[in-house]
């Protein structure tokens, strides 16, 4: 008899090997899977998972079992009344089928298109017949159809199917070799997307049910529920239609490809499908065996391509899809099958065990946990985790700048060691990108979002005033929190209000030149300098025409810079009134007497304008003989040269301050040079000044600049007259002490600066003055020439060159001296 044209004859009633159940279609890939399974090395052994309880059962009192349970003889067939699961499964099958059918009919399910034959079937399903869904069970020998849910394993098969369908649209039979070849061919093209899809869904782990996904399963199988799967596994009845992974598919699970990689994923996904995803049973109106029609429809190419198992299986082993088939097998085949079945069961069990905890946490949960962990990392690293370069610079200034200057080794731009969290984040990003072929956008976004979250968290933590202690009601004391950065305070002393501190003011009034206030000024200068340097870094880009905002920004920036400049200028105390004959030096000169004051000059000169520079130069020139490097440079009688500290100060001054002054003088207008020379003559003790390296250096600077201006023809006649007047005064003053401007004895070393000075004087001097000059230094020239002959060649020639500097300036040469 036939229901709705279905072949309802039971398998055992069929005749001939060709007759088989609808779901006895051979698994085209089982052979491949079996071949791979030979190399199977499971981690979990059956013996390990089996607890052995069965062995403890007392077997000695089984005699009356037959009486109790009515089992008479081996021939007596056992009823199936107890098979509750089978019935349930049947219903659930029907439910699943209904869902598939529903979604197929749903116009929104876009992927239904290739299954047109599905719809025409529906009208023939007679609503007239009352259907209970239990028709099958009217036959007492019926064993429920526990068919494979290929949707469980469907990922790669789904990919392979359209290709196969295209190749074999008709029901043309193909040999296994042909199928394999095709799979290999398409496997190369489809495997990667499949793997990607798998990976993405692995990571994504959004357990959103995807109803429109299900109809596209090749067989149109309903989604599988975990309990159903479990039940199947318990029965040792396994889905036999496990697709073999395409050849291009990487082995992601280490073991040989017995188990398709998609399987665990879909188990997990299905495990999380909410039950309401299934339509209620009352909704169904199609036959529960609706799917039984499908093998005859062209959407099942995979199964139809494959010839009946008896003919094609290369090892003569048919594929078992139904337990009843076991009956027809030889003993050997059955054993082989059972062994294989056990293997599969083992593996499925293992996967089940592994996936038991899957989906317990939502992505939000994981996010949350990760955030907590990162925040702790940030806290442990001392809050330097923000990428704000300003903050990093503030915390790690020395290292950052030193690395920039000296190019200290670092692995990547964000490397500062305290930069814990970010390093961590970066590395994680890299690792994900590397291992997972860097192909998922969502994970990247994830990390970015996380990074931003961390940053926000850190900023919030910084902004929030830290509650350093907690007073819990009823407790006897306060609970202080501490961490590495802010240790628990042992004492809690309140700072006195600053209002009651007029003391510092008074102090600064006291004197401008005591050591403390000078050093305070110095620090003021440095902090202003650093602020200005910071300002320079943050200079907004030059505004464009019409961009009011940018112009505004720029103006504000300039305003700030200007105020900082004013602060710097005030701290320098250059404009303090000059008190003649005062015992205490001018604050600025006192400032210059400290090494760090001298060192500050080059930095200061970069940040001040020309007017301020000339002021500083004037200040120095006016106080030339009270500068420490001039005042102390006179060797104590009996000593060949000044003390070591003074010599160091002189060297430092020459290195730090002189180049700045020279840089300015080289561009200074002539009248300023004249004025400066006048100041030297009028305000300072020229004889003393001339006996020092620094003093001579400044004089040389002025004289040579005047000479250059003259040579360039930039000097007006009037200016030049003024200059000559001043020069004559200077020359007359110097002439008497010309011999004393040389440092110590002739053997005491460096006297080059003296010869430079003499050369500068010689160039500008009149012929008559030159003559007087030669007479004044003639002895020294002769001495040096004589002395240089006793020196090693290179040192001697150096000394001679120095002398020659002067000799050439007045049109002579040491060679002439013979």
């Amino acid at each position, binding site marked *: 008899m036939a229901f709705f044209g279905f072949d309802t004859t039971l398998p055992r009633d069929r005749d001939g090997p060709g007759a088989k159940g609808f779901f006895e279609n051979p698994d085209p890939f089982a052979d491949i899977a079996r071949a791979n399974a030979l190399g199977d090395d499971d981690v979990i052994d059956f013996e390990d998972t089996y607890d052995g309880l069965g062995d403890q059962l007392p077997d000695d009192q089984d005699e009356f079992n037959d009486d109790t349970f009515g089992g008479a003889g081996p021939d007596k067939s056992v009823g199936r009344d107890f098979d509750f699961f089978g019935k349930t499964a049947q219903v659930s099958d029907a439910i699943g089928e209904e869902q598939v059918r529903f979604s197929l009919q749903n116009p929104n399910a876009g992927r239904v298109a290739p299954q047109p034959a599905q719809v025409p079937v529906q009208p023939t399903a007679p609503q007239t017949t009352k259907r209970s869904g239990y028709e099958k069970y009217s036959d007492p020998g019926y064993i429920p159809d526990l068919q494979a849910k290929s949707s469980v394993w469907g990922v790669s098969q789904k990919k392979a199917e359209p290709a196969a369908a295209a190749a074999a649209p008709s029901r043309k039979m193909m040999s296994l070799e042909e199928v394999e070849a095709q799979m290999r061919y398409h496997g190369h093209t489809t495997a990667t997307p499949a793997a990607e899809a798998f990976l993405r869904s692995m990571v994504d782990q959004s357990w959103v049910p995807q109803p429109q996904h299900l109809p596209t399963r090749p067989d149109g199988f309903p989604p599988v529920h975990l309990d159903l799967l479990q039940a199947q596994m318990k029965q040792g009845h396994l889905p036999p239609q496990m697709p073999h992974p395409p050849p291009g598919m990487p082995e992601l699970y280490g073991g040989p490809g017995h188990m398709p990689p998609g399987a665990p994923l879909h188990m997990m996904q299905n495990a999380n499908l909410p039950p309401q995803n299934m339509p209620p049973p009352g909704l169904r109106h199609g036959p529960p065996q609706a799917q039984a029609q499908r093998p005859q429809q062209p959407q099942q190419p995979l199964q139809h391509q494959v010839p009946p198992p008896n003919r094609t299986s290369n090892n003569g082993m048919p594929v078992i899809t139904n337990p009843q088939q076991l009956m027809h097998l030889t003993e050997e085949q059955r054993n082989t099958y059972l062994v294989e079945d056990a293997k599969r069961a083992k593996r499925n069990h293992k996967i089940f065990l592994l996936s038991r905890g899957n989906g317990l946490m939502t992505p939000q949960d994981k996010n949350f946990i990760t955030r907590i962990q990162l925040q702790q990392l940030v806290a442990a*690293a*001392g809050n*330097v985790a923000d990428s704000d370069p300003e903050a990093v610079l*503030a*915390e*790690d*200034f*020395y*290292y*950052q*700048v*030193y*690395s920039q*200057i*000296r190019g*200290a*080794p670092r692995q990547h731009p964000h490397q*500062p*060691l*305290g930069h814990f969290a970010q390093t961590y984040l970066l590395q994680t990003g890299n690792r994900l990108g590397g291992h997972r072929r860097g192909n998922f956008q969502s994970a990247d976004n994830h990390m970015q979002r996380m990074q931003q979250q961390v940053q926000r968290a850190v900023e919030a933590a910084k902004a929030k005033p830290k509650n350093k202690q907690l007073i819990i009601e009823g407790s006897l004391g306060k609970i202080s929190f501490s961490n*590495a950065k802010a240790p628990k305070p042992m004492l809690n002393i309140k*700072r006195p209000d600053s209002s009651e501190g007029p003391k510092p003011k008074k102090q600064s009034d006291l004197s401008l030149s005591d050591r403390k206030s000078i050093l305070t000024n110095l*620090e003021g200068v*440095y*902090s202003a300098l*650093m602020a200005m340097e910071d300002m320079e870094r943050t200079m907004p880009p030059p505004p464009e025409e019409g961009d009011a905002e940018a112009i505004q920004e720029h103006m504000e920036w300039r305003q700030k810079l200007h105020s900082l400049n004013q602060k710097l200028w005030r701290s320098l105390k250059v404009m303090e009134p000059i008190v003649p004959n005062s015992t205490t030096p001018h604050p600025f000169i006192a400032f210059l007497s400290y090494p*760090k004051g001298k*060192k500050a000059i080059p930095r200061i000169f970069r940040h001040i304008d020309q007017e301020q520079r000339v002021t500083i130069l004037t200040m120095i020139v006016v106080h030339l003989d009270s500068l420490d490097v001039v005042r102390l440079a006179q060797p104590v009688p009996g000593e060949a040269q000044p003390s070591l500290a003074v010599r160091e100060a002189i060297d430092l001054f020459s290195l730090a301050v002189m180049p700045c002054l020279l840089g300015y003088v080289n561009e200074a207008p002539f009248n300023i040079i004249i004025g400066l020379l006048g100041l030297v003559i009028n305000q300072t003790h020229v004889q003393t000044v001339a006996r020092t390296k620094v003093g001579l250096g400044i004089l040389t600077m002025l004289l040579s600049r005047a000479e250059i201006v003259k040579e360039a023809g930039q000097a007006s006649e009037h200016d030049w007259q003024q200059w000559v007047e001043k020069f004559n005064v200077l020359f007359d003053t110097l002439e008497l002490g010309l011999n004393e401007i040389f440092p110590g004895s002739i053997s005491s070393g460096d006297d080059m600066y003296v010869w430079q000075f003499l050369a500068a004087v010689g160039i500008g001097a009149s012929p008559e003055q030159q003559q007087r000059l030669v007479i004044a230094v003639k002895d020294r020239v002769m001495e040096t020439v004589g002395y240089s002959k006793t020196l090693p060649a290179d040192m001697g020639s150096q000394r001679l060159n120095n002398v020659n500097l002067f000799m050439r300036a007045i049109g002579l040469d040491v060679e002439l001296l013979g």
Partner: protein
Amino acid sequence: MLFFSFFKTLTNQTVTIELKNDIRIRGILKSVDQYLNIKLDDIEVLDLAKYPHLSSVKNMFIRGSVVRYVMLPRSEVDVGLLEDATRREAANQAGKAR
């Protein structure tokens, strides 16, 4: 963080560390952390005769709290920069105290 920042620049330099128990160890500074714990490589204990038990030690991790002095190579210290860094640190501290 100044000292941490400073010592970080000295990694892979040879330094001599004197501990509070007077042991002096010369070695290559491998790393420093925020507690100024120090990792030394290729160490050499000065006055080894007094501390024979250290003769076979090749590298060590020194807890920051037991360090008395760290002797640095002068050429590796940028004094001017260090001065500025110190000023910044002081300013930071003052800013925090307020």
